[in-house]
């Protein structure tokens, strides 16, 4: 008879064994995931500090091989808040320790904040990580590794240095196994799309070949920070409810409901408790397990709570989104760009906001092969993989009839969709696509329609302008000849001027006259 062994494993051990759920599934994907984790961390840190982020990324090859994975050094530096010295080891050396476990919009999954990256680097190279950080005072540098079995940091060296210039920020440097050549396209796309939705960030990336990619900052404006909020009853589950009951200081259930949740006023509290068959005067501690289950079930169905408070969300905003897209897609003055921000909505009790952008024009035509290029973002981070599986793809390709907006199969369009929420509806862990939650799908579709209506006007106008130009071309071609030959035919000498006639033709549509030189001709054939 074989012995069955039982054991428990630490969280870091779990991620060590299942690193693909954090995106580290293969060497090329690993580099992308590593950069991504650390960049997101840095962006968050800078935003908290309310500073326009300066982010510096460098990848250097340590040992190469002809084909396949090599060892790289990855260094990321930012000018964010920095991490207080006493927190540094556990922030970076312990899984599930960090500042992101409150209910507000945050980048990154699991709030791991870079620890997984360090874990991956360690297990593929057995080299330590070097963290350098300061919150304004001394600069602290830690060289450390993770004790994976016990999920705790192992400090190998700690140096304290003076900080004459008052530098604030964090730098992380580690070695990892990866395949840069396979991932360089995605990395570039990731950084470019990050720049698109964070146009206040200045990102510098030096690749293993020594090339510098500089994504310049286009504005100093930063969106307001999301505020932590209380949970909304629609989104509560039994375990959270139980925990709240255990720690509450409310004297009765009515106070409990009003104090721990958002969207619950005094009358609403009473109405809800009545529906859940709990007395408003009852003590929270008197609730039994069946009561809690009943309360949670009733909460999910109850329709009279106020809508979820969206102040926990931080959308990009129409102005910033426009700035970022213009910059990264090289849009010119004559190109079309429409950004739409929807009002806050909810799905399953979680608030979310959809923002959508549609771009069209000569610049887009130059960059694409025709058809729609989709850019997806969730909580201000780009999603690059699994495009066709998600709700955005579905909304763009199935829910919208583009022909009604004068868009044909070859019309080059760039469509960007951003969803921000306290809980992004990712379909599965480690994947980069969002599930087709009906409310989310509906918001995306409506936003797209709204933007597409503007697009239709633009295209119609472009067609008109192209037609007018062709018309004017014809007159410009033939009138001079008529004048020339009529003069020769009648022995009158010089040909009469046709300028007044040309003016008459182009005067029939006055705005066309001005635009005809400016607007690039992007519509052909069916004018």
């Amino acid at each position, binding site marked *: 008879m074989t012995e069955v062994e039982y054991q428990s494993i630490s969280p870091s051990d779990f991620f060590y064994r299942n690193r693909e759920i954090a995106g580290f599934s293969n060497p090329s994907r690993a580099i992308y995931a590593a950069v991504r984790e650390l960049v997101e961390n840095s962006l968050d840190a800078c935003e908290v500090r309310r500073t326009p982020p300066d982010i510096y990324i460098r990848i250097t090859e340590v040992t190469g091989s002809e084909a396949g994975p090599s060892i790289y050094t990855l260094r990321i530096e930012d000018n964010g808040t920095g991490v207080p010295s006493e927190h540094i080891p556990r922030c970076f050396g312990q899984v599930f320790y960090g500042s992101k476990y409150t209910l507000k919009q945050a980048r990154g999954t699991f709030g791991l904040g870079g620890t997984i990256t360090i874990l991956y680097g360690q297990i593929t190279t057995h080299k330590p990580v070097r963290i350098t950080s300061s919150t304004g005072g001394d600069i602290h540098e830690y060289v450390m590794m993770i004790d994976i079995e016990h999920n705790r940091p192992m400090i190998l060296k700690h140096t304290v240095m003076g900080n004459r210039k008052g530098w604030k920020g964090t730098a992380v440097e580690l070695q990892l196994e990866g395949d840069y050549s396979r991932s360089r396209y995605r990395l570039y796309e990731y950084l470019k799309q990050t720049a698109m939705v964070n146009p206040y960030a200045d990102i510098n990336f030096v690749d293993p070949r020594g090339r510098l990619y500089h994504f310049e900052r286009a504005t100093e404006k930063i969106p307001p920070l999301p505020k932590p909020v209380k949970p909304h009853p629609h989104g509560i589950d039994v375990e959270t409810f139980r925990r709240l009951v255990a720690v509450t200081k409310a004297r009765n259930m009515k106070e409990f409901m009003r104090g721990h949740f958002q969207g619950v006023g005094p009358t609403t509290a009473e109405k809800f408790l009545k529906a859940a068959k709990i007395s408003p005067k009852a003590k929270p501690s008197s609730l039994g397990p069946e009561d809690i289950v009943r309360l949670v079930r009733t909460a999910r169905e109850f329709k009279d709570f106020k809508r979820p408070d969206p102040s926990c969300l931080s959308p990009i905003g129409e102005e910033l989104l426009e700035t970022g897209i213009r910059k990264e897609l090289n849009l010119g003055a004559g190109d079309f760009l429409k950004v739409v921000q929807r009002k806050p909505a909810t799905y399953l009790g979680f608030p979310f906001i959809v923002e959508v952008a549609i771009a069209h024009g000569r610049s887009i035509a130059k960059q694409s092969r025709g058809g729609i290029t989709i850019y997806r973002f969730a909580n201000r981070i780009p999603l690059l993989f699994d495009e066709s599986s998600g709700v955005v793809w579905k909304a763009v390709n199935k829910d919208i009839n583009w022909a009604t907006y004068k868009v044909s199969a070859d019309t080059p369009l760039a469509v960007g969709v951003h969803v921000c929420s306290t809980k992004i509806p990712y379909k599965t862990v480690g994947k980069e696509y969002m599930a087709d939650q009906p409310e989310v799908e509906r918001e995306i579709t409506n936003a797209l329609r709204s933007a597409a209506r503007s697009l239709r006007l633009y295209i119609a106008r472009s067609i008109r302008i192209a037609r007018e130009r062709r*018309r004017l071309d*014809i*007159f410009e*071609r*033939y*009138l001079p*000849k*008529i*004048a020339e*030959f*009529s*003069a*020769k*035919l*009648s*022995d*009158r000498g010089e040909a*009469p*001027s*046709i300028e*007044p*006639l040309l003016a*008459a033709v182009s005067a029939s549509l006055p705005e066309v006259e001005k635009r005809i030189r400016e607007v690039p001709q992007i519509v052909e054939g069916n004018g």
Partner: protein
Amino acid sequence: MELSLKQLGSLIYDQIQNREFPWIMMQSRSTDNILYDPDLRQYVLGDRMIRRHSRNIRHIRPFTQLVWTAWFARELMRLRKTSTLREVYYSARGQRDIEFKHQAESDNIITDLETALNRPRESFNIFPEERSAIFGDLTIEYTVPGYEGRRMNLTEHPDGVMIGPAITSSKFVETTADKVLVVEKGAMFTRLVEERAHERFNAILVHTAGQSPRSTRSIIHRLNRDHNLPVYIFTDADPWGVHIAMVIISGSANAAHLRGLATPEAKWIGVWATDILDYKLPTENLTDFDVKRLKELKGDPRYREELWQREIDIFLKIGKKAELEAFSRYGLTYIVDEYLPAKLDVM
């Protein structure tokens, strides 16, 4: 109303000068405006007019081509040169944008010019390619450059004289003939010349080479009108021949805008369907297309008279056609010795 080319140019020039988009008016040549005038006994254009306006984006190209063609014609006249239709088509190739896509486009513009000016193209030096011929005692005086004042008699060359710009523009001085014999086929024309038919019948012989070109028709018209010569037409016995005769008599739809090309007094004297029967000529079967054509002609107002109706009915009844050469079954000269004299005696 005649407009000279220069006047046309002035008209357009003035319009532009007055900040107007130039335009011209001309008679419509669409089928619903082509009518058969029973008094004049030829096709004429009705009253409908069309305006070709340079403001109209569909008109501006043919309008430009018209002005260019008018200038080209005037250059021809100035340089005292002639040009064929095809040469006009090619000459335009030197001009970007207005070059003609194919000759039909160019021919059409030339016809437009004729309609607008009310003058045949030959009067502004544009001629079709020559292919018909004339032979007989007619003295002409040339007007073409290098030959002004020179005279020639049209019996001087035994192959007959090609009808080209020189003949067409010449003055007819005098003739001793008392009729004109028109034949559609070259073989018959040669036969007539060889047999000295011009002496035997005292006739001027004209070979049309199939459907007669306008210059040939204009010569026939002039001989009939100015010199009172009756005109007798000989064609093959088939619907095509019938039509050739009719075009000489009452003009073509294409030239409905012109006068001086029809000879209503001309007579078609053979080869009739009746002749096929009387002379027992070797025949061919009428094709389906021939039959269709005959039926069309039967309803055509020009063919209303008894002779045409009778002959069309016989063609349809016997279902056969025959060529002029068929008379050779009786010998090479039978047609000149027997057939023609018999026909002409009756006239």
